[in-house]
C-alpha cells in the first residue's frame, strides 16, 4: 500500500512541476503585462503546493511553514503588481 502512496506522491510532484513549467512558459511568452503577473501568481501558488507535497513526502511539518510564507509573500506581491498595473503606482 505504501507503493501506491509513493506512486501518488511522485505523480503529484511531476504534475505540480509540469504546471510550474507551463506557468513559466506563459510568463516568458505572455503578450501583455497582466498576463505575466497572472502567470507569476500561479507560479507562486504552484510553489506553495510543491512545498505541501514535499511535506507529505518527507513527513515533516517544516514545509508547512514554508508554504505559509510562500502564500503570504505571493499574495502581497501579486496585489502590489496588480495595483501598479492599474494606476502606475502602488501606494497613492
Amino acid at each position: 500500500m505504501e507503493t501506491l502512496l509513493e506512486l501518488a506522491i511522485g505523480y503529484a510532484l511531476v504534475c505540480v512541476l509540469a504546471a510550474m513549467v507551463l506557468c513559466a512558459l506563459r510568463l516568458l511568452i505572455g503578450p501583455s503585462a497582466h498576463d505575466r503577473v497572472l502567470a507569476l501568481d500561479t507560479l507562486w501558488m504552484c510553489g506553495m503546493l510543491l512545498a505541501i507535497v514535499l511535506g507529505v513526502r518527507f513527513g515533516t511539518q517544516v514545509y508547512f511553514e514554508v508554504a505559509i510564507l510562500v502564500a503570504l509573500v505571493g499574495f502581497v506581491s501579486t496585489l502590489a503588481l496588480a495595483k501598479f498595473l492599474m494606476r502606475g503606482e502602488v501606494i497613492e
Partner: protein
Amino acid sequence: MSGIEQLPGWAALPVALLLVLGATIILVGALGLLRLRTFYQRIHGPAIAVTLGAGCLLLASMVYFTVAQSRLVIHEIIIAVFILLTAPVVAMTLMRAAVYRDLRARRGDVGATEGGVYSLSEDEAGEPPKS
C-alpha cells in the same frame, strides 16, 4: 518522526486519491493558463482550478498528518482559508487592471470590451450623467 511506510492502508488510499486528483486539477489549470486565447479566458484557470487543486492537496496533507501522528493535525486549514479569501481578490484585482489597461489602450476587440459593452466612445467619456 514518521515516514510514509508507517501509514496504514485504509488511510493511504484516500491520501493517494486526493493527491492524484489535486495534482491533475492543478495541471489542467496551468494548461488552461497556457492554451486559452484571451486574458479574460486565461484567468479562469488559476482562479478556479488551482484553488480547487490546492484544496485537494491541503486535505490530503491534513489526512496524512492526522493518521501518521495519531492526533488531530488541521493547521493546513489556515492555508486553505487564506487561499479561499485571497484567490478571488487577486483575480478581481488583476481583471480590473486588465480592463483599465484595455480601455486606456482603446482596444475594442478583446474580452470585456468586446461587443461594446464597456465601450468608451468619444461623446460619452467624461460626460456627467443626466439627472
